[in-house]
């Protein structure tokens, strides 16, 4: 790529290493592990908050730990 178009390319887009689609327990774990291994991550969730269904649960089996 020419210098000009290369500059355009980097300005045109935000760059990330990995897109994680979904911010439930699985998406959060994936994003954390990726970020801790040196990758820039974009997490996208369709709801107004991350947390997914696990945030709706009261406690989890079999330890009865608080879910949130």
């Amino acid at each position, binding site marked *: 790529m020419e210098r000009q178009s290369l500059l355009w390319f980097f300005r045109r887009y935000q760059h990330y290493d990995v897109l994680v689609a979904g911010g*439930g327990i*699985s*998406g959060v774990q994936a994003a954390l592990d990726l970020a801790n291994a*040196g990758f820039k991550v974009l997490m996208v*969730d369709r709801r*107004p*908050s991350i*947390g997914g269904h696990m945030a709706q649960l009261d*406690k*989890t089996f079999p330890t009865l730990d608080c879910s949130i």
Partner: protein
Amino acid sequence: MSYTEIEGIEGEEGNFTVRLLRKPRYVLEHRCTGCRNCVDHCPVEIPDVFNQKLSKEKAIHIYFSQAIPLICYIDPEYCLYLKEGKCGICADICRNSAIDFGQVPQREEVKVGAVVLSMGFDPYDPSVRPEWGYGRLANVISSMDFERITSSTGPYSGEILRPSDLKHPHKVAWIQCVGSRQVYEGSKSYCSAVCCTYTQKQVILMKIHNPEAECVVFHNDIRAFSKGFERFFERTESLPGVRFIRAYPQVVGEDPVSKNVILRYVTPEGKLVEEDFDLVVLSVGLLPPSGIDKVASELGIELNEYGFCKTNPFDFVEATKPGVFVSGSFIAPSDIPEAVYTASGAASKCGRLLGYRRNKLTVPKQYPPEREVVEEEPRVGVFVCHCGANIGKVVSVPSLVEEALKLPYVVHAEEDLFWCSTSGTKRIMEVVKEKGLNRVVVAACTPKTHEPTFMDSIRMGGINMYLVDMANIREHCTWVHPLEGEAAYEKAKELIKMSLARALLLEPLELYEIPIDKRALVVGGGISGMTCALDLAEQGHEVWLVEKERELGGMARRIYWTLEGEDVQGFLRDLIDRVYRHPLIHVLTEAKIIETSGYLGNFVTKVQSGGTVYEIKHGVTILATGAVEYRPTEYLYGKDPRVVTALEFEELLAKRDQKVLEAENVVMIQCVGSRSKERNYCSRICCGETMKNALKLKELNPNCNIYVLYRDMRTYGFKEDLYRKAADLGVVFIRFEPEQQPVVEQVQGAAERALRVRVRDHVLGEEVEIGVDLVVLAAGVVPAPDNQELSEQFKVPLDEDGFFKEAHVKLRPVDFGTEGIFLCGMAHYPKYIQEAIAQAHGASGRAMTILSKEKEVSSGIVCFVDEGRCMGCGACAEVCTYGAILMEETKRGKKPKVIPVLCKGCGLCNSECPTGAIQVKHFKDEQILAEIDVLMASDEELKDIIDKKIKQNKGAKAA
């Protein structure tokens, strides 16, 4: 980005363009502080979706009380202003001008190298089948509704009430398999895998809330197939007033007066019963996420026949498009541990693909050099937080600020709505710099969650991060005394004073850096160990793979097909080949671990293999030591050659043995060696493996009669279809109770001593006799015999059944409590090949979070020894669970030596020490005692006491 949809992905692995659609919140994210002032004033009430519409919310609200990000959004469907141009109260009331009615959907494009799909599931909506009565009868609720009802942030603030009259229900029924395991319209054929156990949890919670409650669970097999589930089931079943009934009940209707729900069912004894319940909970299954068809086509991935993500048959975390990985329930209905390890696994896969660009886009945070503060006159800043309304509504924050300014050495005090916000932490950093603060007090919430935030901001301000103390005026004050404003205010004042005293005595501490050795040790050369080794080697790390047998392959050497019919031996050969060919993997076979020592990033293990002892240095350890098949002692096994285990039978099938091809009658007995007194767990895989073998036998020998004797059929997830297929092909299923085990016997007198199985058939209600050619025992999975030794060598625990025990059964399924050591595969618990592979990826993903770094930084809060006071008793070393204290010979006798990188600052040694010689930095006795002393002091004495403390502290240090 929350509240954002993915509209499409173009491109290929390494270079995708993602089109995103940010939905309008009508609230400016950077301005909203989450104070909820607007919510209080909004006149429109709407059903609260997060609370399953069991309670009301406002048209402008925060999704739920602990939402991240904690900011409001407006539901345009209900907002009067957005609909009719009226109202707009929220915009007037908002102090930060965060409301923006003009927002429109925004499209954005980003570039990424890989994609992880963690789209989850949707709970089944039981209203699609009117016969459940959901939505029609007030007291029929779904299990998701029940979750919200028991939750303290739920519609009834955590009290279990029923919707019709808000009274405490006493008699509650759960109906299992709602929307699952059914082949009619509107239901799913698969088993949702989690409902049995979440129902048991709900029963236990119900009994905790109301010990007198009567609970009935209507089920059709209890599927307690994961770690700890069998015991959990027993615990639930043994509670007084709890009944488990094997029946499919019908919802007849409700009592017009009491609104109780009437259920009709046939008991296992064949009696038709009608019973009414105060509340009926439908245990709903898991569906693929809604609208996934459209999303899948935009993403260019395929879905399976059930609507979940189609994956590589051996490798669950790979979707059908290269560079797209998948984790969690979007693979198949699954529980939280699977969601966690598949996530780490997907991360590992991304690492293999994008290793070349690791650390290229991320920028490590730079901190300014630290100012020397020890000799300075104390200059303290006090930052008091409103925490939205949490603190500010109960006590007057401005007055607390005023009072703080009167305290000795306080040169600055300030309030903010949220000090933890980005603007708040930046402000603290600036004040530290501008005013030359050398101690900081943050009067806000709990240090457990927020101390790291404030440590970071003062570090950015140029002083040591340990020079901040938090006064918890929320949890310890306004939350517990919300109605006693004045007293709470006095208490908050005292808490700040105490915090100041401690802050003045805090000392700068040094962070310890641990270099990371980039090599890995993988113990166990089965499928899990090899998968893990390849993952790490592909990411550039040298791996030592240690196997005790002569050849790699482990248990998989005896398996020929997966349940889905894939060729295991071919897969295994290819995997072994790739391991041997990889230049970074060293394989040691017939190897034995002699000893191992060290800690995170710096382990040393001695391994003996082929007469040589290797001393291996490595940064992480992964235990993938597998498990073994139970060797039955029951059912004439070993006494009659016609009785074989499932694995032996699989071999006969693979070899097309005459015994199999000519057999007329074959009996398969489940739960051999599992779910017993000695081994009180379910071996998870036997039901599925039996289905696989039965179907294979039907294929090779269609006329053979097959009888499966079982207790509960546990073909969870999509495996349910194999069960159905076997039944359709005429396999006979006979259920037995553990008290009435089947009997396998040789018939005396008959030719060739014919083999016979006797079992009591619960449907017929009588004993049946089957003359058989072969008996196949579904022998369970038992822990490997050397687990005990390995557990002692690596100092990692075993669970009560002898499998390795992970750090947390739900949230840390592949970690050990000891940092730097991981586990995967059957060493953890019995599992299918694909599950073991996914978990192996998970372990490598977790290991990569360490190996990808040059060094780990460990906390400065560690213990230290005052040798003068120490009498060398060694109690501290004994009590330390991290092995961080060694007793060393010195001139003055044995004295403890602390290894700071291993110390977690837990303080156990501190409380054990008889002379107070060993203490924890940052929590030294004088720092804590100072808090108590100033609490007792009058305002006049305060300065003197504090000065005395500072002087003493300096004096002690000088000495």
